Protein backbone atom coordinates (compact mmCIF):
# COMPACT_ATOMS: atom_id res chain seq x y z
CA UNK A 1 0.00 0.00 0.00
CA UNK A 2 1.26 3.46 -0.90
CA UNK A 3 1.31 6.26 1.64
CA UNK A 4 1.30 9.89 0.71
CA UNK A 5 1.40 13.41 2.09
CA UNK A 6 0.14 16.69 0.72
CA UNK A 7 2.78 19.42 0.59
CA UNK A 8 2.35 23.17 0.13
CA UNK A 9 4.31 24.38 -2.92
CA UNK A 10 3.12 27.98 -3.33
CA UNK A 11 0.75 30.50 -1.82
CA UNK A 12 -0.67 33.84 -2.89
CA UNK A 13 -3.63 35.88 -1.67
CA UNK A 14 -5.69 34.21 -4.40
CA UNK A 15 -4.70 30.56 -4.12
CA UNK A 16 -2.88 27.87 -2.17
CA UNK A 17 -1.04 25.38 -4.39
CA UNK A 18 -0.29 21.91 -3.08
CA UNK A 19 1.18 18.72 -4.50
CA UNK A 20 1.44 15.07 -3.48
CA UNK A 21 4.49 13.20 -2.10
CA UNK A 22 4.30 9.40 -2.27
CA UNK A 23 6.02 6.90 0.05
CA UNK A 24 8.34 9.41 1.69
CA UNK A 25 9.65 10.70 -1.66
CA UNK A 26 11.49 13.99 -1.45
CA UNK A 27 9.99 15.01 -4.78
CA UNK A 28 6.35 15.97 -5.14
CA UNK A 29 4.42 14.72 -8.15
CA UNK A 30 4.41 18.19 -9.70
CA UNK A 31 8.16 18.53 -9.15
CA UNK A 32 8.64 15.18 -10.94
CA UNK A 33 6.56 16.57 -13.82
CA UNK A 34 8.74 19.71 -14.04
CA UNK A 35 11.95 17.68 -13.88
CA UNK A 36 10.69 15.37 -16.61
CA UNK A 37 9.87 18.13 -19.10
CA UNK A 38 11.74 21.33 -18.27
CA UNK A 39 14.70 20.49 -20.50
CA UNK A 40 12.77 18.68 -23.23
CA UNK A 41 13.27 20.77 -26.36
CA UNK A 42 10.60 18.95 -28.37
CA UNK A 43 7.92 19.69 -25.76
CA UNK A 44 9.19 23.09 -24.67
CA UNK A 45 6.28 25.09 -26.10
CA UNK A 46 3.73 22.82 -24.42
CA UNK A 47 5.61 22.82 -21.13
CA UNK A 48 5.90 26.63 -21.19
CA UNK A 49 2.14 26.92 -21.75
CA UNK A 50 1.65 24.91 -18.54
CA UNK A 51 4.11 27.03 -16.53
CA UNK A 52 2.43 30.20 -17.83
CA UNK A 53 -0.95 28.84 -16.76
CA UNK A 54 0.41 28.13 -13.26
CA UNK A 55 1.70 31.71 -13.14
CA UNK A 56 -1.78 33.03 -14.01
CA UNK A 57 -3.37 30.76 -11.39
CA UNK A 58 -1.00 32.09 -8.70
CA UNK A 59 -2.06 35.63 -9.67
CA UNK A 60 -5.81 35.09 -10.21
CA UNK A 61 -6.82 31.84 -8.52
CA UNK A 62 -7.71 28.36 -9.76
CA UNK A 63 -10.71 29.54 -11.75
CA UNK A 64 -12.99 26.98 -13.33
CA UNK A 65 -12.34 28.33 -16.83
CA UNK A 66 -8.63 27.45 -16.48
CA UNK A 67 -9.42 23.72 -16.44
CA UNK A 68 -11.20 20.93 -18.20
CA UNK A 69 -12.88 18.11 -16.33
CA UNK A 70 -11.11 14.80 -16.86
CA UNK A 71 -12.28 12.48 -14.14
CA UNK A 72 -15.83 11.49 -13.34
CA UNK A 73 -18.78 13.82 -12.80
CA UNK A 74 -18.61 13.41 -9.03
CA UNK A 75 -14.90 14.14 -8.55
CA UNK A 76 -12.71 17.25 -8.74
CA UNK A 77 -10.07 15.84 -11.11
CA UNK A 78 -9.19 18.32 -13.85
CA UNK A 79 -6.52 18.90 -16.46
CA UNK A 80 -5.00 22.29 -16.95
CA UNK A 81 -6.60 23.77 -20.05
CA UNK A 82 -3.72 25.10 -22.10
CA UNK A 83 -2.92 25.43 -25.74
CA UNK A 84 -1.04 22.15 -25.87
CA UNK A 85 -1.89 19.16 -27.99
CA UNK A 86 0.83 17.02 -26.44
CA UNK A 87 1.15 17.55 -22.69
CA UNK A 88 -1.38 17.10 -19.92
CA UNK A 89 -1.04 18.09 -16.27
CA UNK A 90 -3.68 16.72 -13.90
CA UNK A 91 -4.87 18.45 -10.74
CA UNK A 92 -7.49 18.32 -8.02
CA UNK A 93 -9.38 21.59 -8.04
CA UNK A 94 -10.92 21.85 -4.58
CA UNK A 95 -12.09 25.46 -5.01
CA UNK A 96 -11.10 28.73 -6.71
CA UNK A 97 -8.53 29.06 -3.92
CA UNK A 98 -7.21 25.52 -3.45
CA UNK A 99 -5.44 23.50 -6.13
CA UNK A 100 -3.56 20.23 -5.65
CA UNK A 101 -1.25 19.70 -8.61
CA UNK A 102 -0.49 16.11 -9.57
CA UNK A 103 1.62 14.64 -12.33
CA UNK A 104 1.12 14.45 -16.06
CA UNK A 105 2.71 13.42 -19.29
CA UNK A 106 2.54 13.17 -23.04
CA UNK A 107 -0.95 12.62 -24.36
CA UNK A 108 -0.48 10.35 -27.35
CA UNK A 109 -3.91 8.77 -27.27
CA UNK A 110 -7.32 10.36 -27.82
CA UNK A 111 -8.45 9.82 -24.24
CA UNK A 112 -6.38 9.46 -21.07
CA UNK A 113 -7.92 6.05 -20.32
CA UNK A 114 -5.95 4.64 -23.27
CA UNK A 115 -2.66 5.62 -21.65
CA UNK A 116 -1.52 3.52 -18.71
CA UNK A 117 0.70 6.34 -17.44
CA UNK A 118 -1.92 9.11 -17.66
CA UNK A 119 -4.78 7.03 -16.31
CA UNK A 120 -2.52 6.14 -13.34
CA UNK A 121 -2.09 9.84 -12.54
CA UNK A 122 -5.84 10.45 -12.86
CA UNK A 123 -6.66 7.45 -10.65
CA UNK A 124 -4.21 8.66 -7.97
CA UNK A 125 -6.01 12.01 -7.90
CA UNK A 126 -9.44 10.37 -7.84
CA UNK A 127 -8.35 8.35 -4.82
CA UNK A 128 -7.01 11.49 -3.17
CA UNK A 129 -10.25 13.29 -3.86
CA UNK A 130 -12.12 10.59 -1.89
CA UNK A 131 -9.58 10.63 0.96
CA UNK A 132 -9.71 14.42 1.26
CA UNK A 133 -13.52 14.44 1.31
CA UNK A 134 -13.42 11.80 4.04
CA UNK A 135 -10.83 13.74 6.06
CA UNK A 136 -13.00 16.86 5.76
CA UNK A 137 -16.08 14.96 6.93
CA UNK A 138 -14.13 13.59 9.90
CA UNK A 139 -12.96 17.10 10.80
CA UNK A 140 -9.28 16.22 10.33
CA UNK A 141 -8.71 18.95 7.74
CA UNK A 142 -10.47 22.23 6.98
CA UNK A 143 -10.41 24.30 3.82
CA UNK A 144 -10.16 27.92 4.86
CA UNK A 145 -9.86 30.19 1.81
CA UNK A 146 -6.37 29.47 0.39
CA UNK A 147 -5.22 27.08 3.14
CA UNK A 148 -6.00 23.45 3.98
CA UNK A 149 -5.58 23.49 7.74
CA UNK A 150 -4.20 20.25 9.17
CA UNK A 151 -3.17 18.77 5.83
CA UNK A 152 0.60 18.79 6.29
CA UNK A 153 0.41 16.73 9.49
CA UNK A 154 -1.54 13.95 7.77
CA UNK A 155 -0.33 10.80 6.05
CA UNK A 156 -2.81 9.14 3.70
CA UNK A 157 -3.00 5.44 2.83
CA UNK A 158 -3.65 5.33 -0.89
Amino acid sequence: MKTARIVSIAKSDQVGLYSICFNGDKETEFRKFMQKFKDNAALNKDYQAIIHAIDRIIANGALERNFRYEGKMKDNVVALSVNSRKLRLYCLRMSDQILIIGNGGVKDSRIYEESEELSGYVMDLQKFDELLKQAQEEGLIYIEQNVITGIEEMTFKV
Partner: protein
Amino acid sequence: MIEIYDDILREELAKIPPLTRQTYFLTDSIAARIEAIMKTKGISKKQLAELTHKRPSEISKWLAGGHNFTCKTLVLISNALGEDLIQVTH
Protein backbone atom coordinates in the same frame (compact mmCIF):
# COMPACT_ATOMS: atom_id res chain seq x y z
CA MET B 1 2.07 38.40 -1.23
CA ILE B 2 3.35 35.46 -3.30
CA GLU B 3 5.43 32.72 -1.69
CA ILE B 4 6.88 29.90 -3.81
CA TYR B 5 8.24 27.03 -1.70
CA ASP B 6 9.37 24.76 -4.57
CA ASP B 7 12.71 25.96 -5.93
CA ILE B 8 12.23 24.45 -9.41
CA LEU B 9 8.84 26.18 -9.77
CA ARG B 10 10.42 29.44 -8.56
CA GLU B 11 13.17 29.11 -11.21
CA GLU B 12 10.73 28.22 -13.97
CA LEU B 13 8.50 31.21 -13.16
CA ALA B 14 11.52 33.53 -13.02
CA LYS B 15 12.50 32.50 -16.56
CA ILE B 16 9.26 33.86 -18.09
CA PRO B 17 10.11 36.91 -20.22
CA PRO B 18 8.26 40.05 -18.99
CA LEU B 19 6.73 40.68 -22.44
CA THR B 20 5.33 37.13 -22.56
CA ARG B 21 3.94 37.53 -19.06
CA GLN B 22 2.32 40.89 -19.86
CA THR B 23 0.80 39.41 -23.02
CA TYR B 24 -0.82 36.43 -21.37
CA PHE B 25 -2.10 38.48 -18.46
CA LEU B 26 -3.76 40.77 -21.02
CA THR B 27 -5.29 37.81 -22.86
CA ASP B 28 -6.44 36.43 -19.50
CA SER B 29 -8.19 39.73 -18.74
CA ILE B 30 -9.97 39.48 -22.10
CA ALA B 31 -11.02 35.90 -21.26
CA ALA B 32 -12.36 37.11 -17.89
CA ARG B 33 -14.33 39.87 -19.66
CA ILE B 34 -15.85 37.36 -22.11
CA GLU B 35 -16.79 35.04 -19.26
CA ALA B 36 -18.35 37.91 -17.26
CA ILE B 37 -20.52 39.00 -20.23
CA MET B 38 -21.55 35.38 -20.84
CA LYS B 39 -22.62 35.03 -17.19
CA THR B 40 -24.51 38.33 -17.18
CA LYS B 41 -26.35 37.52 -20.39
CA GLY B 42 -26.84 33.83 -19.60
CA ILE B 43 -24.95 32.71 -22.69
CA SER B 44 -23.47 29.21 -22.51
CA LYS B 45 -20.28 28.03 -24.20
CA LYS B 46 -22.41 26.06 -26.65
CA GLN B 47 -24.46 29.14 -27.52
CA LEU B 48 -21.36 31.28 -28.03
CA ALA B 49 -19.96 28.54 -30.25
CA GLU B 50 -23.12 28.67 -32.37
CA LEU B 51 -23.11 32.48 -32.49
CA THR B 52 -19.49 32.58 -33.65
CA HIS B 53 -19.66 29.45 -35.85
CA LYS B 54 -16.86 27.85 -33.84
CA ARG B 55 -16.57 24.54 -32.02
CA PRO B 56 -17.24 24.53 -28.24
CA SER B 57 -13.62 23.42 -27.73
CA GLU B 58 -12.50 26.70 -29.32
CA ILE B 59 -14.61 28.66 -26.80
CA SER B 60 -13.01 26.69 -23.94
CA LYS B 61 -9.61 27.60 -25.39
CA TRP B 62 -10.54 31.32 -25.44
CA LEU B 63 -11.83 31.21 -21.86
CA ALA B 64 -8.87 29.27 -20.43
CA GLY B 65 -6.66 32.36 -20.74
CA GLY B 66 -3.39 32.67 -22.57
CA HIS B 67 -5.03 32.58 -26.01
CA ASN B 68 -3.49 35.15 -28.35
CA PHE B 69 -6.67 36.71 -29.79
CA THR B 70 -6.52 38.35 -33.19
CA CYS B 71 -8.42 41.61 -33.72
CA LYS B 72 -10.72 39.71 -36.08
CA THR B 73 -11.59 37.18 -33.38
CA LEU B 74 -12.21 39.96 -30.86
CA VAL B 75 -14.64 41.65 -33.26
CA LEU B 76 -16.33 38.30 -33.91
CA ILE B 77 -16.82 37.65 -30.17
CA SER B 78 -17.82 41.23 -29.48
CA ASN B 79 -20.51 41.10 -32.18
CA ALA B 80 -21.77 37.75 -30.94
CA LEU B 81 -22.05 39.00 -27.35
CA GLY B 82 -23.33 42.45 -28.31
CA GLU B 83 -20.80 44.13 -26.02
CA ASP B 84 -17.41 45.83 -26.39
CA LEU B 85 -14.56 43.68 -25.13
CA ILE B 86 -11.75 46.21 -25.24
CA GLN B 87 -11.49 49.96 -25.70
CA VAL B 88 -8.73 51.94 -27.31
CA THR B 89 -7.77 54.93 -25.15
CA HIS B 90 -6.53 58.24 -26.55
